[in-house]
């Protein structure tokens, strides 16, 4: 997003002139959209999406699938429950937000693009009026790993609601979800160098109630990411997530 920086001195003079003339602020003078652009990295690396309080509120069905995932993990049968580990499949939403590596945020035309160092993965939040592209093949019926994220600004907070998520991903390294899951995120800057993502998970088939997790990120120096190709690591029998 191309920003303009109004001269503070001129702004103060102008504001004073407008007030003295009794002219109300124009409806067009909207507050500037917050700028999250930059390089970020998770403050406290974690493989699990931890609820703010208490354990994950599984339903019986959700608990059953979770225990099955643990069993498959112990067996090393990764492709049966975690195709990110077995195939370099996109971790999807919200698991991408747990990446231990860096990511960049870009904002353009109201679209927020997350560009991850890991495998050049991408996700986007559409906080504009731009329509999604025509899905000639899937007709919008085929869920995707990152889902469809529609966003809007509430003051300085970007609120993103993501649905149409493939059940082939996990919330983290074990917790399953269904295709009906909805993820709501509240992203905001706690300070210029700290970004917070409050993630709300709703999936009535697997969880008895919506539950929240919070992840924070610290701003990193500007940098170009190296070309990370997960499939090359997989082919070389190296970890999908670099240690």
């Amino acid at each position, binding site marked *: 997003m191309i920003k303009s920086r109004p001269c503070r001195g001129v702004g103060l003079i102008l504001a004073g002139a407008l007030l003295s003339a009794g002219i109300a602020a124009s409806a067009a003078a909207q507050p500037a959209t917050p700028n999250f652009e930059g390089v970020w990295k998770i403050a406290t690396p974690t493989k699990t999406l931890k609820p703010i309080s208490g354990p994950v509120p599984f339903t019986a069905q959700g608990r059953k699938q979770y225990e099955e995932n643990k069993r498959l993990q112990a067996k090393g049968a990764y492709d049966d429950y975690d195709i990110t580990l077995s195939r370099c499949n996109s971790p999807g939403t919200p698991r991408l937000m747990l990446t231990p590596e860096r990511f960049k945020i*870009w904002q353009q035309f109201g679209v927020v693009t997350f560009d991850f160092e890991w*495998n050049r993965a991408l996700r986007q939040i559409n906080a504009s009026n731009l329509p999604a592209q025509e899905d000639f093949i899937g007709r919008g019926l085929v869920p995707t790993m990152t889902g469809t994220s529609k966003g809007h600004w509430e003051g300085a907070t970007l609120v993103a609601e993501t649905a149409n998520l493939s059940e082939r991903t996990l919330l983290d390294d074990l917790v399953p979800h269904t295709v009906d899951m909805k993820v709501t995120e509240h992203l905001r800057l706690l300070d210029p160098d700290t970004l917070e993502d409050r993630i709300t998970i709703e999936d009535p088939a697997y969880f008895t109630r919506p539950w929240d997790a919070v992840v924070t990120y610290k701003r990193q120096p500007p940098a170009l990411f190296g070309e990370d190709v997960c499939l090359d690591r997989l082919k070389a029998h190296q970890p999908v997530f670099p240690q």
Partner: protein
Amino acid sequence: MRTEFPRRSLKGLAVAGAAALALGAGSAGAQPKGPPPGAGGPGGPPGGAPPAQDGKIALSAPPNFGPPPPPPTPAEQLLAGLPDPQPGAMFPMPPLPADSPMPGADPHDLRGAWHHNQPLAFRMQRDMYDKPAPYNLEGAKVLARRVNSLKDGKPFTNASAVCRPPGPQWQRDLNMPFQIFPSKDWIEFVFEEYHGRWQVVLDPAKAPRPAQKEYMGYSVGHWDGGTLVVESSDFKQALWMDVDGTPLSANGKLIQRIRKVDNGDHAPFLEIITTIDDPTYYTRPWSVVRTFSWEPSLSVFSEYNCEEQIGDPSVSADAGLLPEPKD
């Protein structure tokens, strides 16, 4: 003020393998289905005008008074025997809405969302001046080997087919959108297809050559007036520059000249002239040109997740393709 974007019923898509409809064949950089290299000289086919019919003189190409064309080289003879490439197709994009955001006035500001607006060239047979691509015999052999492998039903593996970054030329050529994010020290191109990334370094001191070669190579750019000149080299492996495998050796270079064009017709575009400099396969450098229309409405990408299929442990990691013989 928010800009409203009307919902559109069509978007530009390349339909690989579609029925033979090559739209926009007259636009710059399109690859018309011309004669095979070496067939016919600048004055047209030999033999003069065809015989008159029904007493009237048929209009035709004027007789060739120039010297006879040189005999085809061994490379040209080899390429003349190849089957024609499939034609690309392109749905025309609707015009920009009247209230669409437009590119910045600064020619150095390439920020925006762009989309290759010409039919995909399955095989770059001719350069931007409509001259045959200047293959030497080694280059012709490589292309022939690749084209015939597909014809024979035993196609060779290549980066694109196995979900690897395909190199800058093919990455840009695909009719899927990309965004450009410039900064002081580099310019980043982020592509929908292959969730690709092309990074152009403006200050090598801030982003030196990586220790390991990369599929997309290492690209260094500088501004020449309003044109960004980018030299890409140091590729991890030899490239297929298009579907049929127009080759670039691992030691080859691509020099890209990128500029914004705005003719005041509410249809700004990016022009990229790519010069292919590869003495391994070509007798001289040669250039192709592509244009990319300004498309803010394509900023929202469709998800591209080829790893789900290619990474499937139950199928071959090479997607059933055969390894290409080394030269």
